[in-house]
């Protein structure tokens, strides 16, 4: 993984000192609440319902075991013993004390971490495919490019006060596991007509109040121009993006109002003037960055049949919670943070410490955060998966549900977030209580359920096969259900099935949607495909045909 050099270390330490001084001035009363808000928001610090919330950056979701131990220690000493992993591969703490945040940042800096630009109207954490570097069919590992972008974006003097937040995702494989089509900018590594690798650049995707799928701005960008092209997009956005209305300030609204063609024309015109400037990424720099992401020292193994002679429970786990690896004899292992009864994405300090140890023992000392709010041990020898499973099982981290109904993406909701209209964690709990039969869950196959407590869509509900959105109805928590959304390479936005429903009816409503699917599906058809084939109508009719029994 990337390791800090003197420059990186210096910058992060200086940031800690800067934020310590800003916090001191706020507590001393020389910075007003409003002035401090603008400063702390550049550092992932929100004032939430119960306490400040601190979001810590995990660049493209990659952590060392040492870093994870530090995150665990922070959870124990500054929080209430847990952290929440987010859809943008970061971690959030919900109970730190404002005056202790500078100390937390100093501890993070010790292990090459920070909270820089994890909130505020600036370029946020660069996210990527959690299977980067290990997935078969990948054109190229996107992480060196993520790091190149991360550094360019960090403390960018021109783009630190944008109209609104700005999110970039980078992928290197045909499958999109980073939801790049619903990012402000999506960067896809592609092969050009001449056979060279370069980038396809998308812009204008996003969720929130106005969900839009990103559009291609440039089909092929030679690799050396990546930063100058991003700079051109950001410059057009900074100058032209709306600042009069917060809900219309994202780049997607600019792209939509100018039209893709005119937006592209402006970006290209700006880029013409920037392309041969100082931002060129030369081959030496790319090679240097690649050096940080060399494959670990894999052993020469062959693929085995790990099912042989093993329990049904292990086999279910292996099937759902592990993924193909490009190196023979290896497997990527998901650590499910979706245990029934636990808030999706939450991990305790003890779990994090255990996982750090397991990363050391089983996966070359690294662990990854997925955008679906699980963790991943990327490089596990197949012959050791049974041993690993037993240890995960003991710690409550082997719920065999990755990619299924109960692998729910979920924002913190009303319980923690001051923006939310409705709870989401307790709805996840209701769904888990209703659907606890794994035979049924497995029979349903791949199913993305995504839930947000408000329009801001932190739980990505628009792109869930089933999306659940919390709405406030005269002070009560109600939920609007969408179906047919998807976040991958075939991204689509879900369609609303009808009027919103009270919390208690969410599980029954999902059950009815699934009944229609089970009755109507064709062989090999996923829930999403059935919805795409039949449309909303049959689902809607079933849901609203009869009142839900109290």
């Amino acid at each position, binding site marked *: 993984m990337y390791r800090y050099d003197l420059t990186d270390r210096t*910058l992060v330490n200086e940031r800690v000192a800067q934020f310590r001084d800003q916090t001191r001035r706020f507590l001393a009363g020389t910075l007003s609440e409003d002035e401090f808000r603008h400063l702390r928001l550049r550092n992932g610090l929100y004032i939430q319902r119960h306490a400040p919330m601190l979001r810590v950056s995990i660049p493209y979701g990659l952590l060392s075991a040492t870093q994870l131990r530090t995150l665990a220690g922070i959870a124990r000493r500054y929080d209430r013993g847990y952290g929440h992993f987010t859809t943008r591969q970061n971690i959030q703490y919900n109970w730190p004390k404002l005056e202790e945040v500078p100390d937390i940042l100093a501890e993070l800096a010790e292990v090459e971490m920070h909270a820089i630009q994890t909130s505020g109207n600036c370029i946020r954490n660069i996210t990527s495919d959690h299977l980067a570097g290990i997935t078969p069919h990948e054109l190229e590992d996107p992480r060196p490019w993520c790091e190149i972008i991360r550094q360019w974006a960090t403390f960018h003097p021109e783009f630190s006060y944008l109209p609104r937040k700005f999110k970039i995702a980078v992928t290197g494989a045909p499958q999109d596991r980073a939801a790049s089509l619903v990012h402000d900018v999506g960067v896809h590594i592609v092969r050009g007509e001449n056979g060279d690798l370069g980038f396809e650049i998308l812009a204008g995707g996003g969720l929130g109040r106005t969900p839009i799928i990103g559009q291609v701005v440039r089909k092929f960008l030679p690799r050396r121009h990546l930063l100058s092209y991003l700079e051109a997009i950001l410059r057009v956005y900074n100058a032209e993006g709306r600042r009069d209305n917060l809900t219309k300030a994202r780049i997607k609204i600019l792209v939509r109002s100018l039209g893709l063609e005119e937006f592209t024309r402006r970006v290209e015109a700006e880029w013409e003037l920037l392309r041969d400037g100082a931002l060129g990424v030369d081959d030496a720099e790319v090679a240097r960055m690649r050096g940080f992401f060399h494959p670990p020292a894999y052993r020469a193994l062959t693929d085995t049949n790990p099912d042989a002679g093993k329990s049904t429970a292990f086999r279910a786990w292996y099937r759902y919670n592990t993924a193909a690896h490009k190196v023979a004899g290896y497997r990527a292992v998901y650590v499910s943070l979706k245990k029934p009864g636990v808030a999706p994405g939450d991990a305790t300090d003890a779990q994090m410490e255990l996982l750090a140890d397991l990363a050391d023992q089983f996966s070359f000392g690294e662990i990854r955060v997925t955008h679906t709010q699980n963790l991943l041990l990327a490089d596990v020898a197949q012959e050791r998966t049974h041993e690993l499973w037993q240890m995960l099982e003991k710690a409550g981290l082997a719920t065999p549900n990755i990619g299924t109904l109960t692998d729910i993406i979920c924002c913190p909701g009303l319980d923690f977030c001051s923006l939310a209209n409705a709870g989401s964690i307790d709805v996840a709990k209701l769904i888990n209580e209703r659907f606890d039969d794994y035979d049924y869950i497995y029979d349903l196959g791949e199913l993305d359920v995504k839930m947000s407590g408000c329009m801001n869509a932190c739980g990505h509900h628009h792109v869930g096969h089933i999306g659940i959105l919390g709405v406030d109805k005269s002070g009560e928590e109600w939920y609007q259900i969408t179906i047919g959304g998807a976040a991958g390479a075939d991204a689509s936005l879900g369609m609303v099935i009808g009027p919103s429903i009270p919390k208690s009816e969410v599980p029954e409503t999902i059950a009815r949607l699934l009944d229609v699917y089970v009755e109507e599906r064709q062989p090999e058809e996923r829930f999403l495909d059935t919805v795409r084939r039949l449309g909303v109508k049959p689902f809607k009719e079933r849901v609203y045909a009869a009142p839900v029994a109290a």
Partner: protein
Amino acid sequence: MPRRLLRDRQIVADEWLYSAEAAGNSLAPLIVTVDEWLNDRETWLARGSRLGLQIAPAHKLESLVQDLGFFTLIAAEFPGPADGRGYTQGRLLRERFDFKGELRATGYVRRDQLFFLARCGFNSFELPEADIEDAMSALSTFSAAYQPSNDKGLKFKLRRGIPAGA
């Protein structure tokens, strides 16, 4: 009492007047708004003093390029802590339009913005009196940077980190 400001890392008394402040003073260097300039340029030129131009975030520099040579100062307005268009204006003035005069940040300007403003080419800052004494240190908040800099004489080498302060 004349306005104090931070210019080229020194606290100085401002010799410039904005047009709204200049009644009865026909000698001081004068800062005019874009509208005033476009409506009445001959009058201002006839004044014979040095001229400065005050621009708002929405002004497109491309339309003013032909006139930049008349001005030895450009004051970019920052209406509040959230509006970052002036940062782009600063870089364009220095890097694309080769403006060599005083580039001033006016309006909502606080010590916590100075580092980025300086990196975008601003060399003078109208700060509140409460901030002005402490503001100088903000120019050295960071001793390295990941992007090309406007600080003269520094060669940017991608990513390797360069001293940002001049």
